[in-house]
C-alpha cells in the first residue's frame, strides 16, 4: 500500500541523502520525495511517498525515526490530510487541437501558461490521481515534456494550528 509520510527534519546539509540512502540501502520503495523550508529556517519539511506492506511501512517509519536529524515522523495515510502535486505539462498541439486541449484543461482547472507553434503548456495542481487523469485524457503520446513536483502534504484542521512552529 502507498503511504504519505511527512517529516520534520533539521535543515542541515546531507539530511536528504541520509533519507534517500536509507531507502536505497534497505531496498525500500520510494516513489517521490519533496523538501522545503518551514517557518522555522532551521527546520525543513519532507514529504515522501513510499509503498510496501504494513511491516515494511512500519520499518520505514522506525528507521526514519532513528535518524538523528529527523525530528518528527508523521504518517499522513489514514489521517485527514491535504495532498497536492504540481505538474507542468507541454502538450503537442497545433492550431487544430488547441481548443480541445484548452477545454480539457478547463475541466481540470489547469492553467495554460504558454502557447507555442505546435504546443501548449499547462500548469495543473491537485492530487496525484487528478494529474494522472488529466494525462490519460490528453494521451501520453501527446505529452512532449513533463515535470512533476512530487506530493506535498499536510494534516487538516486543528492540529496544524496548534503546532505553529514549523507549520
Amino acid at each position, binding site marked *: 500500500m502507498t503511504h504519505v509520510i511527512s517529516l520534520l*527534519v*533539521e535543515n542541515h*546539509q*546531507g539530511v536528504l541523502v*541520509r533519507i534517500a540512502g536509507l531507502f536505497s540501502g534497505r531496498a525500500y520503495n520510494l516513489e517521490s520525495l519533496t523538501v522545503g523550508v518551514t517557518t522555522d529556517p532551521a527546520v525543513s519539511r519532507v514529504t515522501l511517498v513510499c509503498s510496501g506492506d504494513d511491516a515494511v511501512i512500519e520499518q520505514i517509519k522506525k528507521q526514519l525515526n*532513528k*535518524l*538523528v536529524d529527523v*525530528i518528527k515522523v508523521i504518517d499522513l495515510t489514514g489521517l485527514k490530510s491535504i495532498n497536492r502535486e504540481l505538474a507542468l505539462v507541454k502538450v503537442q498541439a497545433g492550431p487544430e487541437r488547441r481548443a480541445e486541449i484548452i477545454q480539457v484543461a478547463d475541466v481540470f482547472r489547469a492553467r495554460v501558461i504558454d502557447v507555442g507553434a505546435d504546443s501548449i503548456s499547462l500548469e495543473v495542481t491537485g492530487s496525484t490521481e487528478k494529474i494522472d487523469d488529466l494525462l490519460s485524457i490528453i494521451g501520453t503520446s501527446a505529452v512532449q515534456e513533463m515535470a512533476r513536483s512530487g506530493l506535498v502534504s499536510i494534516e487538516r484542521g486543528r492540529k496544524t494550528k496548534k503546532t505553529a512552529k514549523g507549520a
Partner: protein
Amino acid sequence: MMRNGAEMLIEALKREGVEVIFGFPGGVVIPVFDALYSEPAIKVVLTRHEQAAVHAADGYARSTGKTGVCLVTSGPGATNTATGLATANFDSVPIVCITGQVPLNMIGNDAFQEADTIGITRPITKHNYLVTERSELAATIKKAFIIAGSGRPGPVVIDLPKDIIVGKLDEEYPDEVKMRGYNPVLKGHIGQIKKAAELLAKAKRPLFYVGGGIQISGAAPAFRKVVKKTGVPVISSLMGIGAIESDHPLNLGMLGMHGTYAANMAVTECDLIFGVGTRFDDRATGKLESFAPHATIIHADIDPSAIARNVPVEIPIVGDAALVLEDLLPFAKPPSIDPWVKLVSGWKEEHPVVPEKSRGRLSPGVVVKKISEVFPEAIIATEVGQNQMWAALFYNYTQPRTLITSGGLGTMGYGFPAAIGVKIAHPDKTVIDIAGDGSIQMNIQEMATAVQEGLAVIIAVLNNGYLGMVRQWQELFYGKRYSGTCLKRRPECPEQCSNPGDQCLAYVPDFVKLAEAYDSVGIRVTKEEEIVPALKRAAEVKDRPVIIDFIIDEEANVWPMVPAGGANKDMLLGGVK
C-alpha cells in the same frame, strides 16, 4: 580559552574521560598528533593499519563499556576504517572515530588524499559529521560522544578538515548540547512489563532468549536475578554469551546455525519466548516459518526497529535491557514448569556439546576446553568462522563482556586487534584471541603493535590449513570441492584436491618463525599432552604477544549445524553423538 581545533579536540577527549586513542597519522592530522605528543593524559596506540585501529577501539569499548576512540588521516586512512566501523555498527559498539579531511576549499576538487568520508561511512555508522565551521567543533564532539554511547550505541565519525584542525577560537567545551531529533527511550513501559510478567507466569514452556543488549546495558546482574526468581530456562545468541554462566543448569546455550541441540529443540517446542536485547537475526532463527512455531513472543529492545522485524511480537517493550529487567523483577513469578525443565535438561544430557574425536591431529574442541580450564577467567576475542564457533561452544564463560567477537558483520581479522584493545583496557587479565589460520592473517601486521606496546596477548591459532568454515560448507553441500579454501596449496599441487594429508607441502607462514620475526614467542602444539604445558608457558610471558600454533584436524567440523535456510530442529549432529 584560545585554542586551535586540535587542542580543542584533545580538551574534549579529556573531558569525556578518554585515556587512550588508537590511530595512524597522515598529512592532515599531523597537528592532532602534535597536540597529543605533549599530552600525558591520553595514550596513543599506533596500529599498523587503520582497520585495526577501529577494531582495537572496538575491543576496548566492548570489554569496558566505555567509548573507544580512533584517529586517522583523510583519504585512505578514512576508507580503511570502513570495515571496522561497519563491524562496530552492526554489534552496537560505542566508538568515536576522528578522520582528517582536506581543507574546506579543496573538498570536491579531487585533492590529494581526499575521499567522501561522510558519504562512505553514512550507512555504516550510527551518525557522522563533517565539521564545516570551526565554531561548531566543540558542540559536534559533544554530540558525537552522546550519540555513540547512549541508546543503542554505535560508531560516530567526525570528519575534520585541515583548516578546522588548525583554526583558532576562544571557546570552552560544552557540558550539554541539544538534539531535538535524538531521544532514545530507556525506560520500558511499565504496563507492558506487567503484561509480560503475567504471560511469563502462566507459560508452560517458557524461555528467555538473551542477546548482546544484556552485555551493553550491564543487565547481567538483573537478568541473573530474574532467572533465579523464575527458574525459566535460557537460550542466547552468540552476542548474549556471558549474560549467564555457560554452565548454569538453566542455560541451554546458544541457538541457531551452530547452536546446541538443547537450545534449538527448546526454541522449537517452547510456548513463550521472552527476548531481551536481541535482534532475532537469521543465523539464530534459521528458517523463519519454522522458528518457534508454538511460541508467543515478548520482545524487549532499546531499538524499536529491531522489534517485530523478523518475528511477530505479542508484547513489544522498548527500553534499555537493564532497566526493563529491573522493573520486571518485582512482578516476575515462577511459573509451574517442572516437566518443561526436566525435558530441556534431558536434551542437554542426551546431546551435550562435546569435541569431535581426534582424527590424528588435535581436536579443536579439546584445545578450547583446555584453554577454558587453564584460563577460567580470561577475556576471549575471536576471529570469524569455525574458530569463533568453537570458542563460543567450548569455553566456559562466567561473566558478561568476556566474549569479544564480530557477530553481525562477521569480520575476519577482527579478533587480534580487538584483543589488543581489550588488553590495553585490562592489563591484568588474560586476553586470548582464539583464531583460525586464515583469519589471523587478515590483521597479522598488528603483531608489531602488540610488541611495541608490550601486550601479552595470547593468540591461539587453530590451524587446519583451510578457510575452515567455507571448507565445511564445501564438504557438506558442494561435494567436497575445496575451491579457494586450501591455504597449503602450491603450484605443485594437483588442479583439484579434496584429500589433505601428510603429502601436503609446508604451511606458510610458519607461525612460530613469524612470532620470532616480531621478537615475540611462538609455540607449536601437535599433541594433546602438549596443550596445557604450552598454555602455561604462554602465561609466563608478560611483556609481548605469544602465538600458539595448534595443528588441528584439517577437516574438523563445527557441530551441530543447521544447514542455511533450514529449520532449527533439523540439525546435523555430525561427529557429536
